[in-house]
């Protein structure tokens, strides 16, 4: 196990700047998730940690050793690829044993390690099968088994669940988390799925366009997004945003709707700003803002209602069951204490 430090790392492919200065500190034994939309450079960063891509500038350290020029095989890391990357001509046991055999580990030790990994992952029955004889979930587990037997300093996962069906994804999510609880190996996990990030991570790194937008614990990002990008990216359904300006004690939308604020950040007064509120922080209330109901989606446990406010669809997540219909006019109110304000130009969070 080891800590990983990424310091001002950059990567260019030809003239394309894919990673544009990333700093991340990963503590020993931590489970960190890199999340961001497709193409933001998550895989590239992970592959640089693995040594599969060169580092254009900056420094990556694994356990206090700068690894910029260390070949992948000497970095003592294991990686699980999105498409599993199993050896098609080897059975499950051989797939897992390969790295140990290359190290000339004694036969008995190889066997012990494989059996241990197979037990942890429920692969004992499948050791003789070839990859093509396995389902997607089983292949995924073999890929993880191959990583586990190595007992590496760091585990790297690149979207390991995105080729699985929804149900399997949820159960594998729990399995990977459980695995980390047991092994306590430092883990860097890449995904584009913010739900995966929220449910699994100890620390989330939100990436966008080759830079880090915010680093923090899942709920920290949810409750205090540092900017508009993080605010909209984290959370499902995503945060409602309205453009307008900040006045003393209230926010006035472009269409003139007045929304109360608990605190007015002095620096924001009079400035163009963005008002954000999460769907579950909206309530039906007679003294709220009126809006026409566009969509109603009851799920049983809650009801998702989309209302039109200031010409924009606003999503509300209501815990109670409500007797409203499409076309009705209802009035909704945000809890002023739970409202977020962002600078309209920079997207930065406006704080008091």
């Amino acid at each position, binding site marked *: 196990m080891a800590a990983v430090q990424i310091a001002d790392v950059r990567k260019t492919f030809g003239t394309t700047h894919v990673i544009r200065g990333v700093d991340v500190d990963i503590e020993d034994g931590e489970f960190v998730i890199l999340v961001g939309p497709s193409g933001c450079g998550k895989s590239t960063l992970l592959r640089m940690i*693995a*040594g*599969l891509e060169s580092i254009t500038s900056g420094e990556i350290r694994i356990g206090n050793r700068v690894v910029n020029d260390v*070949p*992948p*095989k000497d*970095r003592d*890391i*294991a*990686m699980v*690829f999105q*498409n*599993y*990357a*199993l*050896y*098609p*001509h080897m059975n499950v046991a051989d797939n897992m044993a*390969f*790295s140990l055999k*290359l*190290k000339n580990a004694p036969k008995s030790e190889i066997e012990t390690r494989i059996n241990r990994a197979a037990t942890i992952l429920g692969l004992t029955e499948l050791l003789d099968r*070839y*990859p*093509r*004889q396995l389902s997607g979930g089983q*292949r995924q587990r073999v890929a993880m088994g*191959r990583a586990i037997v*190595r007992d590496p300093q760091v585990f790297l996962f690149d979207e390991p669940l995105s080729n699985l069906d929804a149900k399997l994804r949820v159960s594998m999510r729990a399995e990977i988390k459980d695995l980390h609880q047991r092994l306590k190996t430092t883990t860097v996990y890449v995904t584009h799925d913010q739900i995966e990030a929220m449910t699994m991570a100890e620390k989330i790194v939100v990436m966008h366009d080759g830079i880090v937008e915010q680093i923090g614990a899942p709920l920290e990002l949810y409750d205090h997004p540092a900017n508009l990008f993080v605010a909209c990216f984290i959370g499902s359904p995503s945060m409602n945003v309205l453009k307008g300006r900040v006045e003393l004690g209230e926010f006035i939308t472009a269409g003139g709707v007045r929304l109360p604020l608990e605190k007015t950040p002095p620096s924001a007064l009079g400035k163009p700003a963005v008002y954000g509120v999460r769907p579950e922080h909206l309530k039906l209330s007679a003294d709220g803002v009126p809006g026409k109901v566009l969509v109603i989606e009851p799920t049983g446990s809650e009801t998702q209602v989309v209302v039109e406010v200031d010409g924009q669809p606003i999503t509300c997540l209501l815990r109670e069951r409500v007797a409203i219909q499409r076309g009705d006019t209802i009035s909704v109110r945000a809890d002023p204490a739970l409202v977020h304000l962002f600078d309209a130009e920079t997207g930065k969070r406006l704080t008091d």
Partner: protein
Amino acid sequence: MNTAVPSSSDGKKDAGPRQPKKGSLRPSHWPFIIPALVVVGGVIVFPWIFTLWMSVNGWQIGVEQHFVGLTNYQRLLTDARFIDSMGRTLSYTALSVIAPLFLGTLAALIFNTKLPGRGILRGIFVMPMMATPVAIALVWTMMFHPQLGILNYLLSLVGIGPQEWVFHPATVIPSLVLVETWQWTPLVMLIVLGGLASLPAEPYESASLDGASGWQKFRFITFPMIIPFLLIATMIRTIDALKSFDIIYAITQGGPGTASETINLYLYSVAFTYYDVGYGSAIAVVFFILIIALSLLLIYLRQRTSWLLGDA
């Protein structure tokens, strides 16, 4: 050779619900099959049955054709010239399979790297494949010439004395294999290159992390994964080398003496020099059985590697 193309032949096809059961051929289907049957019967089945028939007959020019049973086959067992030619054929074939396979694989590995100008080099490299056998024979006969040939000149540059090449019984077979190798290494290279191009990239990344060196990646990843392609190349080369006639005939006519007389050349002499058609047919039948047996063995080996061809 319907298995020459790699395909995921699991043999576990689920018949769709609408598909008629295998083998249920209705009478109304027959008219569509008859033309193919006639052609196959006329050009493949009939000649073979006829050859089989000739092989159990005395059938010589000037002698009336008469049924002799297995006499021709018995004669084969004691015919030293036949047995020698069989041995030569096998050693010629073994060498003409192994050498191009080894060199072709090596060439494919080289051409598979990002070699500058590899397109042009590859084009030049495959040219021997396109030359006609008689032209090749002419060029190589001149190169083999002990006094005037370029090969002895090249040897003299590295201090090796002149060789007699195809003009000496001891070196004639290796010399002919050299020609065969020169001509057919490109084919093997193309087959293996196709195989290399079809390999997935991901296992190599796994292997890098798992600690494999370049040689270990070849030994444990590349090599096992191209085995099906090597087997195809082996099959094609084996059949081709067994059948080889034109180049040997044009360069040595089986000589010196009978030192390069393979079964094909012996068969040619028996049938067209001595006009012993019945005996020649018996040789042809035995030879055919040999080819079929080797082919079946290779097909069997290839199918055993079909686990490679599923997606992973």
